[in-house]
């Protein structure tokens, strides 16, 4: 059986340096995978290669059995939910129009699912008429999630989705998304530099360092990693937790 998402030997060079150096990875449907690693480790490039916002130099990516390069670009992206740290809501469109943009691009009818989608991300229905500038950071990113989910994607790509939020909002929204992931049967790839967040939300954590996969394990297994660089990353939240517990 082939995996839902099958990445093979992905390579991307920036100048002489390899951003991705022969990365291979298989993700099963329904998995919640966190990509962690230091800045410049290639995690965002890996994520963007899947919806082809980045073009790798080598390697193949198959989604649901099809090479992503064989799928028309617009159709590929319509079928993948995409959430970024800077959110990128369209400032000239209200919340309902932002949420409805992908169905509109796909030429789907005017069935207004804004209320339903707002409910999904735990926002009141009267938000529909507001404009992005009137929303708090957390509300805006909830709308960002609703927009990404509007066309019913099976795969979600998220690049530091909670990165710009305050810690309380961040935790609440993380948990809320984790629930949605299970409820909607999504497959999720999330880039984050926050190892604790990855450990707490994901089923599986992939550690990228200098364009190579250095660890690929469930959270519990990762806690026992032997690789010194991987250990160094995990030790930070572990020590913090210990210090917090000792208070």
């Amino acid at each position, binding site marked *: 059986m082939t995996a839902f998402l099958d990445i093979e030997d992905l390579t991307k060079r920036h100048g002489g340096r390899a951003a991705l150096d022969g990365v291979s990875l298989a993700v099963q449907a329904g998995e919640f995978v966190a990509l962690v690693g230091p800045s410049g480790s290639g995690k965002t490039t890996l994520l963007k290669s899947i919806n082809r916002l980045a073009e790798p130099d080598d390697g193949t990516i198959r989604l649901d059995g099809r090479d992503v390069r064989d799928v028309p670009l617009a159709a590929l992206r319509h079928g993948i939910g995409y959430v970024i740290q800077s959110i990128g809501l369209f*400032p000239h469109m209200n919340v309902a129009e932002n949420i409805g943009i992908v169905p509109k691009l796909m030429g789907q009818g005017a069935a207004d699912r804004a209320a339903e989608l707002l409910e999904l991300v735990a926002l009141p229905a009267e938000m529909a008429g507001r404009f992005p500038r009137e929303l708090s950071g957390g509300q805006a990113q909830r709308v960002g999630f609703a927009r990404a989910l509007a066309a019913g994607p099976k795969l979600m790509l998220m690049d530091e989705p909670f990165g710009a939020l305050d810690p309380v909002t961040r935790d609440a929204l993380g948990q809320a998304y984790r629930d949605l992931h299970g409820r909607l049967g999504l497959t999720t790839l999330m880039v984050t530099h926050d190892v604790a967040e990855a450990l707490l939300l994901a089923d599986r954590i992939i550690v990228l360092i200098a364009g190579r996969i250095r660890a690929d394990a469930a959270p519990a297994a990762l806690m026992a990693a032997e690789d010194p660089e991987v250990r160094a990353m995990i030790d930070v939240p572990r020590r913090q937790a210990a210090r917090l517990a000792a208070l």
Partner: protein
Amino acid sequence: MSPALAEALAELPELVRSHLLLSGCAVGIGVALGLPLAILAARSRALRTPLLGLAGLVQTIPALALLALFYPALLILGRATGLAIPALGFLPALIALSLYALLPILRNGIAALQGIDPAVIEAADGLGMTRRQRLTMVELPLGAPVILAGIRTAAVWTIGAATLATTVGQASLGNLIFSGLQTENWVRVLTGCAAAAALALAVDGLLALVEAGLRRRSRWRVRLGLGALIAALVLAFLPLPGAASGRDVVVIGAKNFSEQYILASAIERRLQAAGYRTERRDNLGSTVAYQALAAGDIDVYVDYSGTLWTNILQRTDTPAPAAMLATLTGALRRRDGVLLLGALGFENAYALAMRRARAEALGLRTLADLARAAPRLTLGADLEFLTRAEWRAVQAGYGLSFAGQTSYSPTFMYRAVADGSVDVITAFSSDGRIAALDLVILADPRRALPSYDAVLLVSPAHAADQRLLAALRPLVGAIPVERMRQANLMVDRDTDKKTPAEAARWLDPAR
């Protein structure tokens, strides 16, 4: 109401129409060209730098010069291609103004597209918008206020600069300003300026309404603003009721001074009495006027034998007036098909003039006397005299050399001699101000200055039009210099000023 104001107001509707049509088309072309270029340039640095450089370069050329440059350029293009390209009037003005409108549209367009939050662009791409969808659904709506601000700047500039279209023979509100400046008819100048300013403010206000509508997502604002602008343009396209149109129109040219306006009005009266419909092209440059006649852009105008002799035939000798006229008549007909119908009866020659008191104090009567005193005196010249062959002839003939030389437009040249800013000026012998300011003309015993008989010229197309020639012939030999001076003075003096049309009625009362 004063006759000057009444006359200016009577001309206003047609001039506003022409002005609006010209500037509207120019801004339209600026947008149609500038916006796609801005979209391309925002994406490509290789295109952006040269494009902005080029548009900036155009902007550094004075608008007046840019307009004037398209006259010879189109003339050459017309000759090279054999196509009937009109070198005068609407086309050169339109091209020059469109180029002028391009820079603000281009610059703001590029800034608008580059100023969009990269996160929004990434989201648009990530959600699967095509380039076209991203442009129409995200980039243009978000950039619209800045793009529109550029269009507003372009519109205000263009409406202002369109007043200069008068100098290439395109009717605009500049007609009032230029002719008013020449005849010191400030009512005309102010009427033209006020109308141009009002037009610019109105258009700017409507565009501001559209801009506010886009920003506030208010449909009625956008519709009202755009609707009013489009309605104004459509109205400008429709000829005014009763306005001249079609092939049967005789176009009368005039250079940029009072005598020319008066004579053009007199010609217009004669032709209208003979049943012709007429149009005017005022404020033509000296050589532009003759080229325009030869090319058929204008049909009739008055020029001066000495000007034609040196500028058109490129001659440097100064034969007797009768011989010069005979040679000119033959040469112009043979070379360009232009008919020299005859001399009007007076001369408007260059003559060096001084205030009587000053000349008597220095004991100067002739150019030979002047040559001795000149190193201590200053000369005020009109804008072209110092570059003309006559000036070289006078310098050579009398050994003239002044302590200083300044160029003025004719009106200010007379002011300068009157208030003592200069000692000697290059006056015109038919100018009413010679008597009014008590100037004396210094005699030219060595005949260094050629004669400048005013002559009626007719375009090749009408050279055999007997009805037209019969209508104009009564003017030949009918205007002695004293009468012309008096008519000029009526227009140029400060008190009890007459309009050129009124002076023309006085000069040639017969109908």
